[in-house]
């Protein structure tokens, strides 16, 4: 299961919570009826997926779809999480 929160970037107001589940998604919050549920880029496969055909991929794809100065999405739970990326220290490489 993947849970994504879509928030207004300026004041962190929660606009929608999207939960993937077998066979589809569940949306709650003020944007419940406004969220576009069209097929979109599914991640990490990169294929266009519908919310019904691959709910986890579709839900993760929201963080690519919503990342503007106005509205942004983030994954708050993922049963199969991807690495978050540890900070790297490249000072030696740059200096060499």
């Amino acid at each position, binding site marked *: 299961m993947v849970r994504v929160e879509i*928030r207004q*970037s300026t004041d*962190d107001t929660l606009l929608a919570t999207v939960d993937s589940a077998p066979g589809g998604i569940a949306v709650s919050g003020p944007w419940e009826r406004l969220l576009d549920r069209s097929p979109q*880029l599914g*991640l*990490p*496969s*990169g*294929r*266009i997926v519908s919310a019904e055909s691959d709910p986890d991929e579709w839900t*993760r794809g929201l*963080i*690519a779809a*919503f*990342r*503007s*100065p106005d509205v*942004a*999405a*983030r*994954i708050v739970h993922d049963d199969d*999480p*991807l*690495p*978050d*990326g*540890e*900070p*790297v*220290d*490249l*000072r030696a*490489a*740059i200096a*060499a």
Partner: protein
Amino acid sequence: MAIVDQLHALLHDQGASGAEEQGLVDAPIVDVDRIHEGEQGANETWVITFGGVGDQGYYKPINGVNGTLAALFGLATWEVALCEATAWRVAASLGAPWSELVPPCVVRAIDEVDPRAPGSLVAQRFGDRERSLEALLFDPQSCLRCAFFDALIGNMDRRPANVLYEPSRDDLAFIDHGFAFPSRSGTMSHSDLLEWRHRLGLDGLEDREREALDEVIDSSDCLGVERYLGDERAEAMIARAKTMRARDRLIRSDEVLP
């Protein structure tokens, strides 16, 4: 270690494509200012002001890249910066019109932002993203050329927000190429402009595009960018070029390469 070798190769070649690129490499910095601080989900971005003429650039430090988002696109955080700069090097190698539509970008260390690691630094063009869709009406030729560029580099993230259009200056720029250069098994490309060109039925190659593909295919090292991208991503770019040249049309975003 791939990251060190790829970074050194890129740093070695930077500055060779003109004064603007050289300025990004070594112009003195007089101010750094973080923008959109606290924005969820996006990569950390800074406005860099250079001395002298007061030019500015946008800087994305490697350690400010959203790691989860990068991973979803099949990239490590440091690869995002390399892809951003590599896209410029491809455009510069191909020449006009692409070198005029993609702003110069380099990888540079800026200690005031992060003393641990460098980031990508792109020349500022203009700030208006609000009217990007107008570019399709007022400069469709450049949008068609950009669709080709997206198909070649496997751009995974061409959205209206990554198109800058300034009608008063009749100026257009295509930015944000950090999520690009997928390997064959990686995330497929996703470009609104490429989809738009396909929908118009204009997916056939034009002469300048055939020439560009021949340059990529005939190059022994993928226009020199193989050393920054690594073998897998460079091979995938050459495969995209060969596929398009053989079919004499642009590949689709969801097309599986042979």
